[in-house]
């Protein structure tokens, strides 16, 4: 699972930076195209939910998602890495 912030929904309130026990969210520095300063993710792979959600089959922790007033935080399935053969033509 990969943690992501939907930049089209986030309004930059920084509430998520308060609640994460791992302090994954850091107040952002640069405004995006909509003029919103979206928080930055600091090593999101530490999130309990990313690591253990599939194992337990339910949402763990999830505090950031619950407190986010703009429903911007979600987890997406990571696609498995498939090695590709590249044919090189000379």
């Amino acid at each position, binding site marked *: 699972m990969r943690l992501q912030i939907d930049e089209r929904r986030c309004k930059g309130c920084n509430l998520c930076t308060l609640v994460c026990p791992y302090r994954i969210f850091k107040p952002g520095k640069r405004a995006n195209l909509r003029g919103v300063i979206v928080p930055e993710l600091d090593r999101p792979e530490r999130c309990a939910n990313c690591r253990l959600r599939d194992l337990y089959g339910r949402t763990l922790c999830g505090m950031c998602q*619950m407190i986010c*007033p703009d*429903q911007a935080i979600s987890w997406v399935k990571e696609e498995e890495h498939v090695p590709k053969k590249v044919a090189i033509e000379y």
Partner: protein
Amino acid sequence: MSEEEWLRQDRLPHIFCAGCGNGTVINCTLSAVEQIGWKKQDTIFVSGIGCSSRAPGYISTDSLHTTHGRALAFATGIKLANPGLNVVVFTGDGDLAAIGGNHFIHACRRNIDITVVCMNNMIYGMTGGQGSPTTPLGGLSTTTPYGSKEPAFDLCGLASAAGANYVARWTSYHVRELTRSILTGLETPGFSFIESLVQCPTNYGRRNRFKQVTDQIEYFRSHTILVEKAVRMKEKGEEVPADMILSGEFVRRNRPALGVRP
């Protein structure tokens, strides 16, 4: 199904200001509705007028956006016409306590089987920040520029006295507890009233020394006290500080309810 499926994706992002706590309360309510396993076609969200009352517009079930203060009257009508429906009312402090005050006490008295989630932002947010009945003593607003001189309305005390079956209060910081309380409210037959204090960064926070959204959430975190703890402190003869927000479950009882599914 997940909470995301209860939202109307095409309507998001919603119009609430950055950091407005109403969005958090929507998350908690949808999570509770999801946990109790209600179906979309038997669930209906009702609201009056105000910032909080825009919430049902973002939820993909049937909803009623009614006139100011009359959400409870419409909800009573729905429940009596078809007791098979699950009715949840979103309302704000002005909508519920000021304009709809009479509907509120009589809905409690009738103990009609609906769940009311009150997002109390302590101000009239949508109309530009006038003082509401729940503006705390000393709170600044456009109509109380020198600080409110009136004591605030204790909505939970009112609901308990008027006869609601379940009464609880939390803040938008206490997402877990709020979700649990809403779930209990949904399960309880009879009138359930859950008040959630929410931050209003644009109109309340800005005027009351909360520069950032996070400041008001920090305030909620540090200034809430559980009812049980307050009772214990009183028994020991200690003084509960006046600015503390009492939170927790106030009432859980089993008065005969109206409109319960036969």
